[in-house]
């Protein structure tokens, strides 16, 4: 028998893992919760848990690089006189001037416009720069109504009534004082340097019956021209979608918990709301039950990273997706080029999520003029356009492999799930079986 003493390597608890221990220490030292952006960071069931089956003897594929696979989307066909026509099924989600620098907003406009898609304002109103740089601009009507005015409402191409967002359904927001420059403060009619609370409830309507009338008012003010979207955080997607339709929406926007540009408490981000994978099928079911699928369009968001995610969202029944975090990364957020600066902030490229603090080394989530100068809106816009082009091509590649001449022809039958959970949430069979949990078959 060897005389060498046994060595038991340190073992982390699965419950009190390194992150949990560090968080307890941090909370004990500071007495305050952690606030951050970037959406849910823990693993939740996601599009990675789905696979496309592709063509086989029973399915006939389309020729890559040769045969047409359409990507255009029309949004707002239900009531609006002027529906929105997009060339690709990927839109840019709402992010405010205030949270983002003016250059970043402009860059989003350039990139989206180059690819024939839309951008969206955010809390804080519409800036002239983003209106000019965005061919198609969606104007958000948020609970705070910062900067809201009928002139901008009429300049918009569509109106999005924001009920909630995936990062914090049921929560409002706070733009910290250090990001409240004179211009941001003026747009929001508040003093410079104070924390600006974004309300969690709309001030003049409280339920779906009121919302119906609110939408009527918006349509009356804009001569029934603009598509009206309703954006909800993914919580009760079946009922919220049904109520949005009942309220008169042209488009429903459904944002999953991975949606992340809005900074809020870490505990809120990680523990409230649904992953987008779990939300799409109930929303589509609601539309189908009301005979409104494809008549009221569905945009989904929260964790879209690549063309496979886009294709899977469309196959589950969405008409388009929206990207926020991925768009910021495409502009240059979390770029290793700024690693030294990230280190000074106690983080590393790829993990930086204190977007609310206004010290973004990439010059995107800041109002500091020196940092903001780091982002060239034209070059950053080109990067976003490139990214959008790749998303679109990847989506087409998958659609052609499934034999579809338009990305909207993707369907649940093209998908299987790698996990029981994903199969149940997406309503597609577990791979290698014909079993959909909760439905018949084995």
């Amino acid at each position: 028998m060897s005389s060498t003493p046994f060595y038991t390597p340190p073992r982390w608890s699965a419950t009190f893992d390194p992150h949990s221990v560090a968080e307890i220490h941090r909370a004990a030292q500071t007495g305050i919760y952690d606030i951050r952006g970037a959406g849910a960071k823990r693993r939740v069931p996601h599009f990675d848990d789905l696979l496309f089956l592709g063509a086989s003897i029973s399915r006939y594929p389309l020729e890559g690089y040769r045969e047409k696979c359409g990507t255009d989307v029309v949004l707002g066909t239900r009531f609006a006189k002027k529906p929105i026509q997009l060339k690709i099924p990927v839109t840019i989600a709402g992010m405010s001037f205030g949270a983002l620098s003016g250059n970043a907003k402009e860059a989003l406009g350039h990139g989206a416009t180059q690819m024939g898609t839309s951008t969206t304002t955010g809390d804080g109103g519409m800036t002239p720069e983003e209106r000019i740089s965005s061919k198609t601009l969606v104007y958000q009507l948020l609970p705070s109504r910062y900067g809201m005015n009928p002139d901008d409402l009429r300049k918009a191409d569509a109106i999005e009534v924001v009920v909630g967002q995936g990062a914090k359904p049921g929560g409002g927001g706070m733009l910290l004082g250090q990001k409240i420059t004179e211009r941001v403060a003026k747009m929001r009619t508040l003093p410079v340097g104070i924390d600006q609370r974004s309300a969690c409830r709309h001030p003049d309507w409280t339920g779906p019956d009121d919302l119906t009338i609110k939408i009527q008012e918006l349509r009356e003010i804009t001569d029934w021209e603009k598509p009206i979207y309703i954006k909800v955080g993914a919580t009760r997607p079946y009922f919220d979608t049904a109520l949005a339709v009942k309220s008169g929406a042209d488009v429903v926007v459904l944002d999953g918990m991975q949606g992340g540009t809005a900074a809020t408490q870490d505990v809120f981000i990680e523990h409230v709301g649904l992953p987008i994978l779990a939300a799409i099928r109930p929303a589509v079911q609601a539309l189908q039950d009301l005979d409104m699928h494809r008549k009221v369009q569905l945009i989904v968001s929260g964790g879209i990273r690549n063309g496979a995610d886009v294709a899977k969202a469309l196959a589950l029944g969405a008409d388009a997706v929206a990207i926020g975090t991925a768009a910021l990364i495409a502009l240059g957020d979390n770029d290793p080029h700024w690693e030294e600066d990230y280190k000074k902030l106690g983080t590393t490229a790829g993990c930086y999520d204190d977007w609310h603090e206004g010290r973004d080394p990439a010059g995107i989530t800041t109002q500091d003029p020196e940092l903001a100068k780091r982002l060239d809106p034209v070059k950053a816009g080109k990067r976003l356009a490139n990214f959008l082009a790749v998303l679109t091509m990847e989506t087409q590649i998958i659609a052609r492999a499934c034999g579809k001449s338009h990305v909207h022809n993707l369907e649940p039958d093209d998908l299987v799930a790698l996990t029981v959970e994903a199969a149940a949430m997406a309503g597609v069979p577990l791979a290698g079986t014909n079993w959909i949990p909760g439905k018949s078959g084995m």
Partner: protein
Amino acid sequence: MNVIDLAKTPLREVNSRLQKLPKDTNERLWKLVNVHGEHACAVGLNQPIEVQIEGHIGYYCGGMNQEATIVVNGQCGVGLAENIMSGEVRVKGNASAAAGATGQGGLIVIEGDAGTRCGISMKGVDIVVGGSVGAMSAFMAQAGSLVVCGDAGANLGDSLYEARIYVQGKVESLGADCVEKKMTPHHVAKLEKLLQRAGINADAKNFKRYGSARKLYNFHVDNVDAY
């Protein structure tokens, strides 16, 4: 005067017609009759015209008004003149909840009472209420003045920013960070002017002034008990 009968003309046509009047129009006086509680009536007006509404009206009457003068000879539903930018909206009767919500400018006069959340998130509008206002009025109010000639319900001015509140009667309770402030001659003079502009007969010296203590402007963990 142009008279439009809403029993014969669809609301959509009425709003569109009023919104599309040219800047130099001579048709400056309009009367809407048989309105029967229509919602979103006379919204998005953007010319210095006068619109008289005969009868009770529904939600969001005069919403996002710019420059026009709207007079309602009746009672109003929720969200009267929400997000008004300029001009004047006057109600001869009472107004329901959220009157003047998020209003950015102009003047709202409610000669009767207003419901809950009057002046919620107001951003520069002046609101003068001849009677009383309900609970949570001027909640998160940012700028402008709310004048209440009667009483104010619970939690007046909760989470107030820079808006000014004047109340002549009793205040059931003040909301978080809202405090009574000294009524200086400067404030009396400003209030007198506003009452005169609103055509409301009241003595400015009888009012108390309320504003923000500004203690909650920047989040601090020591203040959590205040929320």
